[in-house]
């Protein structure tokens, strides 16, 4: 008997929607979960803003809490001007948060455990920062790479490091979310697999001893719920910090 902890990340083709050259384009389970995530977020927001009571009900307070949470994050990191980007950051936060929380349910598919999806989101943020920064500040945007007050003889080195780290941002931005979700889900499956392995190999003693890895699985599961939310928050706050560079360049 063997454990296959990465089977859960399989992409399955559901039905074909088109042909691009030699390449068939399929509607996959990944696409289906994307639709599900967007539907949940939309339903939450529509149900939350439908009644608009003075004393909010369940849905309305959830919508209000998420709105105020993202607003305070943007205001504290990118200033009042950052509110221009509220729709972008709010969509990113809600999409990642809901898809992570859906993915934590057993037997579901986790969207953010695929690098292509997080990389697409991170590149969207990267190009938004780059294009908006150049559009708003012109060539002054490139002062971002030249910190003030650095002695002239180490300036080339500092500029090189700043440019390099700027272009590495989408890499670390996407890999952080992807690897966190991937590693968390693999750890869950590996520990859950220990229960079955113990029972099959040791019989009755094994099934009793399996309580230990089962308890650990429950503990890791609780941690994963925290991580699912925290990584969405980290993604949103890093987006705010990068946008802050485009809004206020120069150190």
């Amino acid at each position, binding site marked *: 008997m063997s454990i296959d902890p990465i089977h859960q990340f399989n992409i399955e083709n559901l039905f074909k929607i088109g042909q691009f050259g030699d390449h068939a384009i399929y509607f996959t389970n990944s696409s289906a979960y994307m639709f599900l995530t967007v539907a949940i977020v939309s339903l939450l927001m529509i149900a939350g803003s439908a009644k608009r009571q003075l004393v909010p009900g369940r849905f309305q307070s959830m919508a209000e809490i998420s709105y105020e949470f993202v607003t305070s994050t943007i205001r504290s990191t990118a200033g009042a001007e950052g509110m221009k980007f509220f729709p972008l950051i709010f969509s990113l936060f809600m999409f990642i948060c809901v898809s992570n929380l859906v993915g934590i349910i057993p037997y579901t598919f986790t969207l953010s455990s695929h690098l292509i999806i997080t990389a697409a989101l991170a590149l969207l943020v990267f190009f938004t920062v780059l294009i908006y920064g150049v559009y708003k500040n012109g060539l002054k945007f490139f002062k971002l790479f030249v910190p003030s007050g650095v002695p002239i003889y180490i300036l080339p080195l500092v500029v090189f490091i700043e440019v390099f780290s700027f272009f590495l941002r989408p890499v670390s931005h996407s*890999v952080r979310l992807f690897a966190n979700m991937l590693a968390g889900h693999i750890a869950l499956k590996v520990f859950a697999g220990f229960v079955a392995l113990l029972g099959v190999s040791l019989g009755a003693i094994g099934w009793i001893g399996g309580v230990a890895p089962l308890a650990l699985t429950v503990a890791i599961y609780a941690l994963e719920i925290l991580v699912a939310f925290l990584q969405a928050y980290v993604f949103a706050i890093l987006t705010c910090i990068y946008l802050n560079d485009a809004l206020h360049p120069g150190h």
Partner: protein
Amino acid sequence: MDPAAAKLIGAGIACIGMGGAGVGVGVIFGNYLAAAVRNPSAAQGQFGNLIFGFAVTEALGIFSLLIALLLLFVSL
């Protein structure tokens, strides 16, 4: 050496890098807590910085974990 064995040993060695990230995250949260106990009123305003520092530090550990996962699960 058997390539499969070398892969497993490499994955184990790659995970050592996570120790550094562990130290870094500990330093960040420890210093935040020490500062928050001294001046609780200023703590709330630094929460964003805390999470930013945590995310940047943690990323480096995650990179080494990623190398280990690639060695374990991706057939080259």
